[in-house]
């Protein structure tokens, strides 16, 4: 496919333009134009002006859109720069130790990012462990098993759910999920794994309801629609011929999925999962409601913890002192760098899939 159009070449000669009008049979115009050379010259000069105006407006619009495109880049640059500038005091005060210190004490102004970073990673991993298999299951159902009449409604429902703001999931987690887990699930987990070597540590302590596990589950519910809709789109790129060939040599449905669909879409699936992971890592409100905001690393998944975004959301407006604020901004910078890398990988993977598709 060629480019849209060649650059403006309006200097075709306005004589042509007038001739064109005459050819069009607009006699009134043609008569007026052809009266004498003086009128003709006047018209020509007016046309030249009009064309120059067009050219100017054209150039302005081009420059304006170009500037807007650059502005998007500058926006990202601005975000990074402002975070870096804001976190300079904290970087000076703590250096690399910021990442390896667990304590977070506003009174003595000793800050370390280890607990929030740990919480962020653990909650996201729990979320992914739950959401990815379910999302793949739903996507397989939608592309391979679902009756055609139902495909569209279910697909639309999932996309609508992906748009529901995270604070809704948060309030539901706080008022419904946490009490339910506290009463019915967590005591059982603690009792069931009490004598199992490793798991007893993971599921130890009193059932608070809120905590790392609850946050992970809420995140999973939130990320589920996103990963599902991407996996479905990705599965739909598999050419029917490949699947039909596999069925023709006698594969069962599962074997087709296992050996044709998934290998063909592997790159795109990784991209989709990474996108979900990026969302989970940066998610704020859903987590803030249910994580308990405790700055410590506990081996138990039932204990309260914190994530980077929850720490910022909870403490930023109450932070007194430059160092405290700066430490929170440094946390934000760390979060941004992590998600940026994850999202960049995700985009790269999805882009590769598109290229493969266009082959």
């Amino acid at each position, binding site marked *: *496919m060629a*480019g*849209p*159009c060649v650059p403006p070449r*309006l200097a075709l000669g306005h004589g042509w333009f007038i001739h064109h009008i005459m050819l069009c049979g607009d006699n009134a115009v043609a008569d007026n134009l052809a009266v004498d050379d003086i009128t003709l010259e006047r018209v020509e000069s007016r046309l030249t002006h009009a064309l120059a105006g*067009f050219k100017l407006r*054209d150039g302005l*619009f081009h420059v304006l859109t*170009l500037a*807007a*495109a650059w*502005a*998007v880049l500058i*926006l*990202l640059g601005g*975000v990074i720069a*402002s975070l870096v*500038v*804001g976190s300079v005091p904290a970087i000076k005060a703590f250096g690399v130790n910021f990442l390896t210190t667990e304590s977070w004490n506003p009174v003595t102004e000793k800050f370390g990012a280890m607990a929030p970073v740990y919480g962020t990673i653990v909650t996201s991993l729990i979320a992914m462990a739950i959401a990815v*298999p*379910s*999302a793949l*299951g*739903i996507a*397989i*159902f939608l592309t391979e098993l679902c009756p055609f009449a139902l495909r569209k409604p*279910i697909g639309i*429902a999932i*996309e*609508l759910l992906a*748009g*529901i*703001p995270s*604070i*809704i*999931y948060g*309030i*539901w987690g*706080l*008022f*419904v999920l946490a009490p339910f887990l506290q009463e019915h699930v967590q005591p059982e987990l603690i009792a069931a794994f009490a004598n199992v070597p490793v798991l007893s540590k993971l599921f130890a302590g009193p059932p608070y309801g809120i905590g790392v596990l609850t946050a992970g589950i809420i995140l999973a*519910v939130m990320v*589920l629609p996103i990963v*599902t809709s991407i996996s479905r789109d990705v599965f739909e790129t598999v050419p029917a011929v490949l699947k039909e060939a596999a069925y023709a040599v006698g594969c*069962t449905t*599962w*074997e087709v999925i*296992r050996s044709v669909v998934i290998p063909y879409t592997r790159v795109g699936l990784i991209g989709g999962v990474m*996108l979900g992971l*990026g*969302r989970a890592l*940066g*998610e*704020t*409100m859903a987590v803030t409601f249910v994580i308990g905001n405790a700055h410590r690393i506990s081996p138990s998944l039932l204990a309260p913890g914190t994530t980077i*975004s929850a720490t910022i*959301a909870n403490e930023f407006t109450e932070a007194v002192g430059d160092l405290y604020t700066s430490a929170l*901004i440094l946390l934000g910078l760390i979060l941004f760098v992590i*998600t940026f890398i994850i999202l960049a990988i995700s*985009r790269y993977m999805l882009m590769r899939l598109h290229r493969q598709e266009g082959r």
Partner: protein
Amino acid sequence: MAIYKSRRRRSAFYLGLCYVAVAIGLGWLAIILATLLFEGFRNFSLTVFTQMTPPPGAEGGLLNAITGSLIMTTLGVAIGTPLGMLAGTYMAEYGRYSKLTFFVRFINDILLSAPSIVIGLFVYEVMVVRMGHFSALAGAAALAVIVVPVVVRTTEDMLLLVPDTLREAARALGLPRSIVIGKVAYRAARAGLVTGVILAIARISGETAPLLFTALNNQFFSTNLNAPMSSLPAVIFQFALSPYKEWQHLAWTGALLITLAVLALSITARALQTQRPAK
């Protein structure tokens, strides 16, 4: 024969797991919506739209929060949309094959999913610190930063759907490029462009994190753009975590309002998209 049977069983087993995933996943999301509708409507009354957010322990409404949300969302969209549209126009029309477009597309897709709380920090650094106080204006700016990538993305996608033959026909008549874009490309892609803006509104109407430390919150009715302003998400956050029953009820009602608004917007966007005339 035995192998065949075991393969069949295996297939049935894994496909069964898929059905289980569907039941759990969709069921779970249905439960969330059902709870939301139930709790939201149970405490719903028209005073929600006529009264201010109450002090602890009293009855009240969400009028100031709703107004604040509307003001900041409108402003955010008004600031973010032109920028996003122009950038999207460049990417689809002028620089379709340029390196810059490729790069902006990549960055834009990342901004699209970047954690919104970081956007809040950015606007705090750039505006709140400079101005010395929290303000609705800063809140609107934070929302605008979130609007931009959404609009850039849809504008580019929708303009690329416009067939080049239309542009070439217009150019063949001697129309300058800016007019071709304005009168032909925009017009052909109008439904799609509107969809993008609606999606952007849906996206920011539930955003909480970037408002927490830009617009902060305000217990009272205020339309002053230079002062802290209340917003639905911020009120939900504050009220839900409070120990007061009345506040928690209002938080549910607010959550219901936001969800209904977002769903209505998304459905409208979808309807517009499917209505797009075929070429």
